[in-house]
């Protein structure tokens, strides 16, 4: 037997002014299974709540309908009332007779009728509601951060400093990321290394941060609060625990190959560290160029190593780490302009990329900060910057990479400071100086005599004799096509998703935006969240951004992750979908429509059936409708409940 109690709130005169609450209570009391119906001035007041509580206890109510304001106002209040009286809080329904009746209609009789229908609908629903209990899932109170550029470093430090453990995994042999390649940063012209290095050191010395460099996350399983990550620690060809980072091996190594870190503007050894401040300061043997490994000769590094750390045969190691949340800060790659043949990159020696210029300008770079032409080593006098290379381009990337205007201006200024006599042209579409101090920075560049040419560069060709690149562009302000012979061209390449981002995306079950960067859960409201609960985004992995934005987002991601791991357990909403395994045909249609990856197909005897992970399911019901034969139901929103409500709303069954 069901005993439903209905409580009709006057809400002062807010409801009672339009709805005849007393008559309504009398009508409602006659409904099937309703054992009492009361009206009261303010149901949400303490005496109102006590009324419900007492009735549950003394009148043996087992389900409650409150006809009052919107459930958005006081549903939780009444749920607590039920719980405190020992009744399952999910056996409550709210009939919204204020916002959706008394406040929107004037006719007393009709509004009372409508209120009756709304209560009748709520009664029909509550009668069929199931008592539900929130499940809780234990949370592993550590965070995995993928990528140790400035974003990953900031996130890790924030989390660690608040007191939670971090597992930080970096693909390269040192942390620091792209920022470590930069000389100075805009708009303050701070030395990049000067602000980054202390943070890197902090990472290495923080006991709460477990750092894996030269490592990759290969697999992630589990769900919010309970992820398991398999990490491959690639072999450096030496024993890290012995290496002291003395650098002797690096010094004696006879092999020299183009340095990727220097964007091929310089050379490195076959055993090398990326840069002097590398963290950890432990070299890696490049197996592709090491003479000993490729030809079996040499072995110099092993001979000179005072601690005997070199171990050519060393293999990769695999480590499993359990974490409660994941922050993806895998960064970006610079756009490779080779495909934009009109710019001649890779053909004309004196056409370089912005990142290559960064290395040339870097005091610790291959030229110790001197900008020289690759063709002859001469100092270029006329330099042109070409903006939007691969960005804002229908044929490459449609998006704006956000940083190129500023880094081109920054580098132009730096050159101008070294060589005030040099002529610098910046070919742009719009100068996007949109940050704090950026417009001022742009003004400063104009003051210094840097020439801004509005127009997209159509073509670059080379004067064979001088090897000077010539820029042919449509100067849209002049309205004419211009040709400009310069000593060197710098292509301001944009940002593209990191080469392995699609692997990471699949591994984590993330969505990708059309631009290929990881997609956030909501562009405006949840910019650091993803659709996979417990996974957050930081930095340029989510989309192009500059250093301040990256740091800000990293802090946001840290906070998101802390929101998960600061709890010992997570309470999961029980209002989710569940599968009737017997009915399930295992077709996978539900899996296909689930935006959260909450559904997987598992084997049951000889069949496949869908299984919903309650920790991931959000209870949207999409899968319910996708299911052809009704194997999935959304708890307390079942077909039968809806049909019963329809019958109540429309007055009677067929």
């Amino acid at each position, binding site marked *: 037997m069901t005993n439903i109690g209905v409580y009709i709130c006057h809400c002062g005169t807010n409801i009672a002014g339009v709805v005849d609450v007393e008559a309504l209570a009398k009508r409602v009391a006659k409904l099937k299974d309703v054992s009492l119906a009361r009206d009261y001035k303010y149901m949400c007041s303490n005496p109102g709540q006590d009324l419900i509580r007492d009735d549950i206890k003394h009148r043996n109510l087992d389900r409650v309908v409150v006809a009052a304001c*919107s*459930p*958005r106002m006081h549903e939780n209040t009444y749920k607590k009332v039920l719980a405190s009286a020992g009744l399952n809080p999910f056996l409550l329904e709210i009939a*919204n007779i*204020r*916002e*959706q*009746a008394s*406040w*929107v*209609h*004037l*006719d007393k009789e*009709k*509004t009372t*009728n*409508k209120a009756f*229908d*709304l209560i009748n*609908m709520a009664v029909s629903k509550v009668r069929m509601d199931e008592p539900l209990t929130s499940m809780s899932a234990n949370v592993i109170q550590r965070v995995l951060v993928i990528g140790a550029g400035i974003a990953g470093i900031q996130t890790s430090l924030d989390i660690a400093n608040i007191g939670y453990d971090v597992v930080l995994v970096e693909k390269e042999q040192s942390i620091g990321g792209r920022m470590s390649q930069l000389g100075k940063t805009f708009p303050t012209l701070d030395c990049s290394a000067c602000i980054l290095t202390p943070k890197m050191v902090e990472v290495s010395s923080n006991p709460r941060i477990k750092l894996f460099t030269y490592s990759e996350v290969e697999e992630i399983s589990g769900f919010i609060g309970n992820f398991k990550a398999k990490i491959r620690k690639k072999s450096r060809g030496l024993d890290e625990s012995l290496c002291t980072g003395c650098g002797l091996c690096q010094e004696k190594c006879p092999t020299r190959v183009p340095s990727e870190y220097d964007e091929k503007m310089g050379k490195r050894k076959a055993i090398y560290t990326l840069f002097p401040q590398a963290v950890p300061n432990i070299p890696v043997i490049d197996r592709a160029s090491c003479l000993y490994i490729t030809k079996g000769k040499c072995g110099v590094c092993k001979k000179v190593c005072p601690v005997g750390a070199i171990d050519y045969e060393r293999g990769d190691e695999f480590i499993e780490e359990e974490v409660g949340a994941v922050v993806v800060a895998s960064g970006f790659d610079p756009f490779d302009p080779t495909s934009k043949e009109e710019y001649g990159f890779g053909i004309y020696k004196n056409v370089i990329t912005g990142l290559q210029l960064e290395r040339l300008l870097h005091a610790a770079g291959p030229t110790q900060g001197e900008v020289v032409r690759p063709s002859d080593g001469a100092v270029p006098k006329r330099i042109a910057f070409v903006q939007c290379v691969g960005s804002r381009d229908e044929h490459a990337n449609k998006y704006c990479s956000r940083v190129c205007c500023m880094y081109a201006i920054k580098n132009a200024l730096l050159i101008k400071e070294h060589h005030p006599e040099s002529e610098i042209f910046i070919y742009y579409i719009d100068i996007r100086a949109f940050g704090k101090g950026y417009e001022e920075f742009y003004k400063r560049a104009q003051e210094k005599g840097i020439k801004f040419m509005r127009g997209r560069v159509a073509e670059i060709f080379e004067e064979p004799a001088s090897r000077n690149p010539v820029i042919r562009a449509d100067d849209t302000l002049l309205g004419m096509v211009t040709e400009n012979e310069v000593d060197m061209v710098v292509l301001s390449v944009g940002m593209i998703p990191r080469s392995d981002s699609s692997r990471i995306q699949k591994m984590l079950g993330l969505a990708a935006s059309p631009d290929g960067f990881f997609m956030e859960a909501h562009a405006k409201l949840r910019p650091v969240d993803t*659709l996979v609960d417990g996974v957050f985004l930081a930095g340029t992995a989510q989309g192009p951004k500059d250093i301040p934005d990256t740091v800000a987002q990293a802090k946001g991601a840290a906070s998101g992750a802390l929101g998960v791991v600061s709890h010992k357990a997570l309470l999961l909403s029980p*209002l989710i979908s569940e599968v009737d395994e017997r009915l399930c045909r295992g077709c996978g249609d539900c899996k296909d*429509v689930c*935006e959260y990856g909450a559904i997987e197909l598992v084997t049951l005897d000889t069949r496949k059936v869908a299984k919903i992970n309650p920790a991931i399911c*959000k*209870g*949207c*019901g*999409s899968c*319910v*409708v*996708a299911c052809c034969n009704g194997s999935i139901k*959304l708890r307390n*929103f079942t*077909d039968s409940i*809806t*049909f019963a*409500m*329809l*019958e109540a*709303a*429309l*007055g*009677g*069954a*067929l």
Partner: protein
Amino acid sequence: MTEFSPRIVAFCCNWCSYVGADLAGTSRLQYPDNIRIIKVMCSGQVFPSYILKALELGADGVMVAGCHIGDCHYVSGNKKAQERVETLLRVMKTLGLDPRRVRLEWISASEGVKFANTVKEFVEEVKELGPNQLGVRE
């Protein structure tokens, strides 16, 4: 003879349209009392069969309201709702039922006015269509 007063059922999603309806209330916007709202978590949770069942039970109009495309709380539930309503409209066409009795609307949490106006409009439109033939019992 009294004026025909249509019976209308609206399925409103929990995150946008239901809140929009609440906003119409808090803004004290008046609209016809013909409508009965059933809250669903997402417009994508509305089976085509819910709509047909409502018509079978004599509803003169059925509205499905969800978040604007792109704003779905569950990413794409509203897009799914759109596809599903289209399927239903095909069936209704074969059955000879007037597709104008079914309306799909995107109403955000801030569109109390749109909610009220939509209800007004829909009620007027359904009044012109006359009573749902299925509601006339033999």
